[in-house]
C-alpha cells in the first residue's frame, strides 16, 4: 500500500496533516505530519503536495534498522529504535522523512494508514497498491 496524490486537486486545507499527526503520534499537531502541502502564492497559485511513495530508501540506510515494513508493504518507524541520526532524511527523494528533535524524539514517516484520505474533501489523496498506476 502507498499513498497517491493529485496535487492539482489540493486546496491547501491541511486537514490531512491534522489527521496524520493524530494517526502517527496521537497528537493535534500538523507540524508533526508525514506529508507536506507547499503553497505557491500569489503566483502561480498552486499547491504542491509531497507524499511518501514507500520506496524504502530510508529503511535501506537506517543504521539501527528502526524502519520496518508492515504486512501491506508500508514502511514505518519503530520509535523506540530510532536514535535521531538523520541518515534517512537526505535519502528520501520526496523529502517526507522527518527528524525534528525539537518536536519529537524520533524520526517519523507515513505509514499508509489512510486517515488523510478520509478527511480530504477534494479527493486529492488515495491509497493504492505500490505498483498501481496513478488513478
Amino acid at each position, binding site marked *: 500500500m502507498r499513498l497517491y496524490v493529485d496535487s492539482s486537486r489540493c486546496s491547501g486545507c491541511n486537514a490531512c496533516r491534522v489527521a496524520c499527526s493524530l494517526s502517527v503520534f496521537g497528537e*493535534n*499537531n500538523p507540524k508533526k505530519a508525514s506529508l507536506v502541502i507547499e503553497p505557491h502564492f500569489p503566483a502561480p497559485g498552486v499547491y504542491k503536495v509531497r507524499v511518501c511513495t514507500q520506496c524504502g530508501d530510508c529503511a535501506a540506510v537506517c543504521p539501527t534498522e528502526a524502519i520496518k515494513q508492515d504486512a501491506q508493504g508500508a514502511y514505518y518507524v519503530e520509535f523506540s529504535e530510532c536514535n535521531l541520526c538523520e541518515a534517512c532524511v537526505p535519502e528520501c527523494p520526496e523529502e517526507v522523512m522527518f527528524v525534528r528533535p525539537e518536536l519529537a524524539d524520533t524520526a517519523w514517516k507515513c505509514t499508509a494508514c489512510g486517515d488523510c484520505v478520509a478527511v480530504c*474533501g477534494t479527493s486529492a489523496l488515495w491509497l493504492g497498491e505500490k505498483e498501481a498506476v496513478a488513478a
Partner: protein
Amino acid sequence: MNGYGGHILRVNLTTGQVKKEPTPADLARDYLGGRGFGIYFLLKEVPKGADPLGPENKLIISSGPLSGLLVAGGGKCDWTCKAPLTGGYASASMGGHFTAELKYAGLDSIILEGISPKPVYLFIDDDKIELRDASEYWGKGSMTVEKMMKDKFGEEFQCAVIGPAGENMVSFAHINHDFGRQAGRGGVGAVMGSKKVKAIVVRGTKSVPVADLEAYRKAGMALYKACKDAEGLKEWTRYGTTIVTSWCNEVGALPTRNFSAGSFEGAQGIYGQTMREKIVVTDKGCFGCPCPCGKYSKTKKYNSYVEGPEYETIGLLGSNVGIDDIEAVAQANLLCDEMGIDTISAGNVIAWAMECYEKGIFTKQDTGGIELKFGNADAVFKMIEMITKKEGLGALLADGVKKASQEIGKGTEKFAIHVKGMEQSAYQTHNATAMLLAYMTCDVGAHHNRAWAITYDIQVGREKVVPEKVARVIWLQHFRPMFDVLGACRLQWVELGIDRDLYVPLLEAITGIHRTWEDIEKVGERIWNLTRLYWARENADFGRAWDMPAPRFYEDPPKTGVTKGQYTKLEDVNKLLDMYYEQRGWDSNGLPKPETLQKLGIPQELVA
C-alpha cells in the same frame, strides 16, 4: 486547558511590553472563544467613549475551541474592536490558516493595546514573541508584504497584514491573510494601522490537548464523512459562494447600480459559471475545510492573480457599480486586497458616488476629471486608489457612505445604503422582509452573515411581515454567529446541509464539557444582547432610529428587473422592528429590558 491554546497574549504597543496570561477557565466556559472572548474584553477593558483610532481601543484577535483541530472548517479567527466605521461594535471573521497557527503557538487571543511610537510587526514563534521594526514593510501592499515575510521566515509562518489603507486609517480598511482571506468589515484594519502594527506573523509547533482523544477522532471523522458524502459537495466546491450569483439575479436580490434594482442586464458576465470557465485556476480552502469555497483566479486582461472574487465582491464591485466583466471585478478585488480595503464597503460607497455623479451632484471637478459613471471599471480602480490615499473625493469616501452622505446632504442620504454606518452587503432588500430585518438588526451594521434569511423569504413569501420571519431571524442570529465563537466555518452546515448535531459530541470530546445546541444558542443570545449594550454604551442616542434601513428600500422601488415596483412600506418596516423587539425582550426603543438581561445571566460588571 483542553481544546484551547491556553494563553492570552497582551501586547502593549505604547510600552513595547508583551505578556502572556493563562486563559481563564470560566471565560472559556461562559464565552467559549472567538467573538465571545472579543465582546467580553471589549466591554470590560475598552473604556466608554474611547476613540476607535486612539490608544484606548483594543484589537482583540481570537481563535475558538474548534479552531485548528480535526474539525471540518476549523479555520476561523475573530477580530473584535470598537469600529472606526460605525462608532459601535466590530467583529470581523477571517478564514485561512492564522487561527490554527495561533492555537498551536499556545494562544487563544492576542490583545493589541496602546499605540506604538513607530511602525512595528508582531513576531511570534511559539514562545519567542517580539515587536520588531516594520520600516521596510510600511507603505507596501498587504500581499507584497505577506510574500516578503513568507520568503524571509518560511511557509510555516502565517501572516496577517494591513495595506496602505490600514496605515492611512481608511474607516473600512481590512486585514489580509493567506493571499486573499480577510478580516473584512468595520475598519479593523484601520485600528491595526492606528496602532502602527503592520503585520502579525506567527508559527506554532505545540500540540493542542483534547479531553477525550478517541471520542474526538471518531466525532471529527464523522463530521468529515458527512461533508464528503453530502450531495452538494461537488457543485459547491466548483463555484463556492459565486454559486448564488445567478439565483440572486433571477429573484431580484443582486444589488445593481447602487441598490436601485435587483437584477442586472449584464449579470451573465459575472456569473459563477462564467468565472469558473474564464479565470479560476485552483480551489483554495481555509484550514481543515473539505469544501473549499475559495477560488483562486488569474486574469488575462490584467495579467494578475487574486483569490476570488467571491459573491459579495461580485455583487458590490460588479453589478452594484454596473460592471459586467468578471475580469474587471477580479482586478478591482485585487486592488482592494493589496491596498487593504473591504470590497463590500468599497463597492457600496463607490456606487453611491457614481449615483451622485450621474445625478449631477458631483461633477468632473469633484472627481478629479474621472468619468465616474456606472460601468466604468477604470474609474472604479482609480477610486480604490484615491480612497486608499484619501486623495480628492477619495478622502470623503474613506469615511464610509453614512458620513459622506451626511456631509454632502442634498438628499444623498436617501440612497446611502447602510445600517448604523456599515455599508450593506450584497443582497437587495426592497422586497425580502426577513433579510431586510436581518440587516437592520445585525450587530455590526448591514452585514449578511449573522442571519442569511433571504432564502427563507423566498420560501415563505417575500413580502410577508409575520412573526415567523422575525423568529427565524432571531434564531439565525443566535445560532450562526456561534460558529464565529467556536472558531469554525458555518458553510458546511449552510451549504452542505450537514446535521448540526454532529458538532455536539465533537465539542464535548474536545473541551470535556457537554453542551447541546440549546446551551450553545443561549451563549449566542447572551453575546447578542451584550453587543447591543455596547452600542448603547458608546452612543448616547442609540435606539430604534439606528435600526432603520436605507430609505431607498421603503420609498424608492426598482424601476427595472424582476422586483420592479416592489418595496417594503415604512409601516411594515416599523412593524418588523416592533415584533423583533418584543420577541427579544427589548423595549420599544430597542434596548434590552432589565428582566431580559437578568434572564440571560449577564454579569453586572460588564454592563455597569
